[in-house]
């Protein structure tokens, strides 16, 4: 039975159900329990935004607070994954990858290849991404494309609570390292989410809205903004097909190509900076594979090539919005 559940609670439920199903699933990170060794409540926080709240009471020592030491505990999660565990390491903000990137891109991503196919590293690294929290340059980035570039990693960026649950369960059951990106502005958004455990396969994009004039490819929090733009554009007689990539590695290219072959027009909406982004990647792939179908130049809607700013007016300008998406669609539809 489905009921309305928030994105945040959907993540919690996915972890809960997988921990109940499989004893090798363990969760570690700074404050994922919150309060270990402190004089007050043991389970005080349950994650910095409360995403893992309540799991400590059910799973005890399988929920592990860590010292503030990303290299050590992300590396430990990766090492434990090669020894038969299925760790979910929470990195809190994606911006902190800088201090433990070696463990991710040189170790986890490469074991299987370097070791001649003999290693499996079923680790999930959860992290919050994206701007909008007035959290400034060290807590607001969208680094999805950095991980997408690295062979050996899988990269997930859900746009809604239903997908968040199914994709996280898939990530935990997957036998490769997965970077699971959660847009912090989506935590409070709700969707119909089934009670039972279910998976959503990677590399299966969703068609969030069917349309015939312009293909709008988006992901994460940009899906909602693209749908908002599509609603407004429909009133002007422009029919947008909005595609939610859901995963960027592996990525469902076929759904994008089929849509572009139908519409002949492409706008890609991505909250990361434009250079070497998911937007530029999708644009390049479409140019290579659907060139003869294109009736107009491709438009990209990105954050600008600047760090996320603090001041509210600047951050609002930084994040792509429905207005900018509509302008891009109108430019290619003209």
């Amino acid at each position, binding site marked *: 039975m489905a009921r309305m559940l928030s994105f945040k609670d959907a993540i919690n439920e996915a972890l809960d159900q997988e921990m109940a199903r499989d004893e090798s699933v363990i969760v570690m990170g700074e404050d994922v329990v919150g309060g270990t060794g402190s004089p007050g409540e043991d389970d005080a926080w349950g994650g910095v935004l409360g995403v893992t709240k309540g799991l400590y009471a059910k799973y005890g020592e*399988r929920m592990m607070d860590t010292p503030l030491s990303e290299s050590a505990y992300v590396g430990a999660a990766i*090492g434990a994954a090669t020894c038969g565990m299925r760790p979910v390491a929470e990195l809190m903000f994606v911006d902190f990858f800088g201090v433990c990137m070696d463990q991710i891109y040189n170790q986890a991503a490469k074991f*299987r290849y370097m070791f001649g196919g003999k290693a499996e590293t079923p680790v999930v690294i959860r992290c919050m991404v994206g701007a909008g929290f007035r959290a400034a340059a060290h807590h607001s980035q969208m680094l999805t494309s950095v991980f997408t570039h690295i062979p050996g990693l899988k990269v997930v960026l859900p746009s809604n609570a239903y997908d968040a649950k199914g994709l996280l369960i898939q990530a935990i059951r*997957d036998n*490769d390292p997965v970077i699971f990106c959660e847009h912090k502005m989506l935590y409070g958004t709700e969707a119909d989410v089934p009670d039972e455990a279910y998976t959503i396969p990677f590399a299966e994009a969703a068609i969030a809205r069917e349309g015939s004039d312009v293909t709008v490819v988006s992901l994460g929090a940009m899906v909602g903004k693209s749908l908002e733009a599509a609603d407004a554009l429909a009133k002007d007689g422009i029919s947008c097909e909005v595609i939610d990539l859901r995963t960027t590695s592996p990525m469902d290219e076929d759904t994008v190509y089929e849509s572009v072959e139908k519409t002949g027009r492409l706008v890609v909406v991505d909250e990361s900076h434009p250079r070497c982004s998911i937007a530029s990647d999708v644009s390049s792939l479409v140019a290579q594979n659907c060139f003869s179908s294109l009736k107009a130049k491709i438009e990209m809607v990105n954050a600008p090539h600047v760090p996320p700013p603090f001041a509210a007016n600047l951050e609002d300008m930084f994040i792509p919005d429905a207005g900018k998406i509509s302008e891009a669609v109108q430019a290619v539809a003209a």
Partner: protein
Amino acid sequence: MGSASPFPLNKEELLKVYRTMRSIREFEERVHLEFAKGGIPGFVHLYAGEEANAAGIMYHLTSDDRIASTHRGHGHCIAKGVDIHGMMAEIYGKGTGVCAGKGGSMHIADLDTGMMGANGILGAGAPLVCGAALAAKFKGDKGVAISFVGDGASNQGTMLESLNLATVWNLPAIFVVENNGYAESTSAEWAVSCDSYVDRAAGFGMPGVSVDGFDFFAVYEAAGEAVKRARNGGGPSLMECRTGRFFGHFEGDAQTYRADNEVDQLRTENDCIKIISKKVTDAGVIEQGELDAIDKEVLALIDDAVEKAVAAPPPAPAELHTDVYVSY
């Protein structure tokens, strides 16, 4: 007929130790020669001179115990039981290599024997070992995990963070610093801020011990205590092995940063294989002829490994694209 052994190991065990140390030495001396001839691609970092550490520590482990090695990893592999033919073929970049020719000297790994990999990133093994130790703790199988670093990587944040984490989580982990005096060309005397690694152990709340890494028995005994403590739930330890390498940082290193007679002196006065040989023969436990026989067998094994590695085919071209993911 040998006398009763005054050592903690009996004759048969001592012969096994000697074979391990001699295999490492012969392997490395041969790789040195073959590299100079141009037969081996890439970078190789040789372990010759440090054999007592690998042999003395690994003697206490089973294939269920995990180790994470360094860029100077051949000795750790051999002592952990990785197949010598597979290793040699790997170093030659052949499809018959233990990693199918896709890892090379700096990434030799064999999870079946508990060898989690040599590592091109210095200090990267320490967090991984925390994970292996954590897995052993969850499984309750009394397994231990050992991280090797050199004096250079002992200064890495990953290493220092791992020491802290291992104590906080009370992990069955052992951190071995093989101090051969140099991080590439930079002296440990200069680059390591403390007088003794034992001081660092104390700072991270774990026991620390510094041993003469040229003396197999000193390493064996200290490692034995650390392994026993870890297996019994007593938590992590730090161990420094004061050692020296016979060759440069990598093959091709002119080693002009070393004193003129330093390597000669190492080879004559501090050769761990000569030292253990003298001890066991002087005690009358083993005869020189028995050691010579092992030398001959090891030489034949390494000859055969080189011959087969040279003759082996490179990986099939299709292998370029395989084994990136379990599924994609």
